[in-house]
């Protein structure tokens, strides 16, 4: 009896397992092909000297030309095949060009004779190697014979057939660490590292603080609160490209409102290029500080765009908090600041630290915002912008991939830290 029960249970479990895996399989496949595979491919590419041009495979370009009159029986005409290796980097190997000479012609001369053969009107040229950027000519001298027919016999009617093999850097098994050497030894590496961490730490902390303030303000109920709550989420839900360009135009040095306004009110006398100036001097009590202007602007944008998120989370958490505790504290004579410091803050610290970690990871990975605001110039180049810069601006895919690997390693470290931490805290 118990045996049968057990058996039934087991088959049910087996069935469930199977069904579960079937339901998850499409997800696994899609995610594997578009996320995991590229991730591995990224490691692969980062160890190879690949440039953007390598994505276009090398080709042998052959052009056929005819010189002289073909219809003249006594005169020799020439068929010329001009070939060129389109790649500036890679040699082509085992190059063979084949073509058919129509029956109406007799071949008189062949050049270069050591490579080319004619067998039964079939021209075969075995050129072996064509090195990068090199070109050459095959010349065949022909004249008309008795079988010639006007319409049928045109040597150009059959296209030359080209076969060759070439090395493909993407799939070959050659690896080197040049890319990483380049990335780490460049003097800008530490600059990029510094900027990345400045941006991430100040952007994350700023957004969290402003979000906390906003949540405190919106916790008090007042008329129109739900409208204001919706309003404050605008920066986060709008397309990044729209709001980034709005900021760029707002702070434009020539036609931007902020600059004109500041000049108008006699606060400054020259327009400030907010997103294009690396440093600006700020004089406090006679000391001159070099203030990283563009970086601060980018951080300000980051705070502006992402404070709604922390605000939303913190507000949700605060509204789940029992009101009675505050009432009890009031009776005990706790002042508002004490209530905040001793009741609200300890209650919020869990969600805030989780938010900080998650946002830290996301800010570190942020590309769009900086790219659209400054293009990574004026001291705002973070790792993510550097990926684009290396891979597509300097068109060195390998170096770009190496930077992406560096990002991924940082990401992995942060996420392991996050995973370990979030186990302790309930989200």
């Amino acid at each position, binding site marked *: 009896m118990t045996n049968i029960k057990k058996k039934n249970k087991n088959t049910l479990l087996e069935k469930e397992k199977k069904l579960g895996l079937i339901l998850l399989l499409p997800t696994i496949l*899609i995610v594997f092909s578009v996320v995991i*595979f590229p991730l591995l491919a990224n490691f692969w590419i980062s160890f190879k000297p690949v440039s953007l041009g390598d994505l276009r495979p090398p080709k042998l370009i052959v052009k056929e030309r005819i010189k002289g009159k073909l219809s003249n029986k006594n005169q020799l005409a020439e068929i010329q095949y001009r070939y060129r290796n389109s790649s500036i980097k890679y040699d082509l190997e085992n190059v063979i060009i084949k073509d058919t000479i129509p029956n109406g012609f007799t071949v008189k001369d062949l050049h270069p004779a050591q490579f080319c053969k004619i067998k039964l009107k079939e021209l075969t040229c075995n050129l072996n190697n064509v090195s990068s950027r090199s070109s050459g000519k095959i010349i065949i001298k022909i004249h008309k014979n008795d079988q010639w027919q006007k319409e049928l016999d045109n040597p150009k009617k059959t296209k030359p057939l080209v076969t060759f093999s070439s090395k493909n850097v993407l799939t070959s098994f050659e690896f080197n660490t040049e890319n990483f050497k380049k990335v780490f030894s460049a003097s800008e590496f530490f600059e990029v590292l510094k900027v990345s961490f400045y941006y991430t730490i100040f952007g994350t902390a700023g957004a969290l603080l402003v979000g906390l303030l906003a949540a405190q303000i919106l916790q008090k109920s007042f008329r129109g609160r739900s409208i204001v709550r919706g309003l404050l989420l605008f920066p986060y839900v709008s397309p990044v490209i729209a709001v980034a*360009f709005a900021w760029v135009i707002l702070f434009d040095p020539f036609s931007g409102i902020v600059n004109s*306004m500041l000049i108008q009110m006699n606060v400054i006398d020259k327009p400030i290029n907010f997103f294009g100036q690396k440093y600006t001097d700020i004089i406090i009590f006679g000391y001159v500080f070099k203030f990283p202007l563009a970086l601060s602007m980018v951080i300000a944008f980051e705070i502006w765009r992402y404070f709604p998120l922390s605000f939303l989370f913190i507000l949700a958490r605060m509204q789940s908090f029992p009101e009675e505790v505050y009432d009890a504290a009031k009776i005990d004579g706790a002042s508002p600041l004490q209530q905040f410091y001793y009741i609200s803050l300890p209650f919020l610290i869990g969600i805030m630290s989780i938010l900080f970690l998650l946002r830290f990871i996301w800010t570190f990975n942020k590309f769009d915002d900086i790219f659209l605001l400054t293009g990574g110039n004026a001291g705002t180049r973070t790792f993510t912008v550097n990926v684009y810069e290396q891979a597509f601006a300097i068109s060195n895919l390998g170096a770009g*991939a190496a930077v992406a690997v560096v990002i991924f390693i940082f*990401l992995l470290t942060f996420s392991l830290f996050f995973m370990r931490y979030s186990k302790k805290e309930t989200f």
Partner: protein
Amino acid sequence: MFWKYGLFFSILSGGIWGIFWQIFFTVVGILTLGTPLSLELSQIMIIGPLAGILYIKSQKFLSIKFHLTTIIVITFLIFISHLGNPYQAKDENRLIIFMLTLLTSFFIWVSLNHSLYNLSPGKLSKHDIESFFIKFMWGIGLIILILITLIPFYIMIMTSLKNQQSLILNPLDLSVNLNTDFKTLFNSYIELFTNFNFHLFLINSFIVSCTTVIITLFFSIPGAYALARLRIPNKKIFSGTVILIYLIPSIVLIIPLYAVFSYIGLRNSLFGLILVYPATTIPVALYMLRGYFSALSSEIDDAALMDGLSRIQIILKIAIPLSKPAIVSVGLYVFMIAWNEFLIAFMFLDDPSIFTLSRGIMSLNSSEIPQQHLMAGAVIATIPVMIIFLYLEKFLISGLSAGGVKG
């Protein structure tokens, strides 16, 4: 100590509110008039505190009549102290200048009424001081928060309605002349839809976003159900991997994707985008829906199983109808991600006839195309998201707070 008295706080808040509203309305004046106004702060630094003292001393007989009189008196004081011309403006704008001054005094008084309400001028307890401080900061904080959030959007809309000539002539003049006809006012929008193919971009964006939502939901609903309900080996590892994948940014994947998609010829096509987008959104959707499904009570499922329904039937007939709001919010969130996506669209699409809106706006960012076109494009891209957001705010907020740590 003097700073423990209510009188001190009335002076302080009078001064700060005075300066705040004076700056605010000078800016408003410059933007509506388009003519230079100078920012005059010295007079208001005396009038503001005076108003504060007046408020706190006269708290016993506050009435609407009293409020109105004081507002007019403050306006008068501002005018007199500036010798009749508060912003050093030209004569022809008299009426607007008067309105600005009246508004300044009105708002100073209203703000004082909020932050000094029920505050005694005498010595205050620590509790009272803190309450005052919090109330005061609450007011200023709320206003600054709203302003900072809205200004870029305001600039976006106003710039899109201007024409090139007036923008270069005076960048500060953001007033919109409502007497101009529809065509001149919305010139940039008409231009974008007729000469810049924006109707195509809009359609493309809709196609890509909607397809992404459909594919994402189609795969993530059964997946999430399996993770929430079925006994699968190594479930924890799987869930952990989902979160980890969801943290991988597209910039790390873009180089191999670019290389591979170029090789197989899918790069410059909407189909390529539709292949990539769901892969980035499925983990998010899975993560969010799993939470919703596990919150449903499993007893319904057990009862249905007893009645002979298969798991697939349970998903279709029980899980989906029960979590409709959740599915709607996940769908909206995915739509938003796909609609706003920039990097992959920017790297993949070269052919203008298949641009999505993000990519299309990027192509407007050149020195040859006037700024107001760029801003009109930005408005066009923002409006659909805003409509969705305003109509379905509640859904979306629950979606955002469930999975919105991404982005």
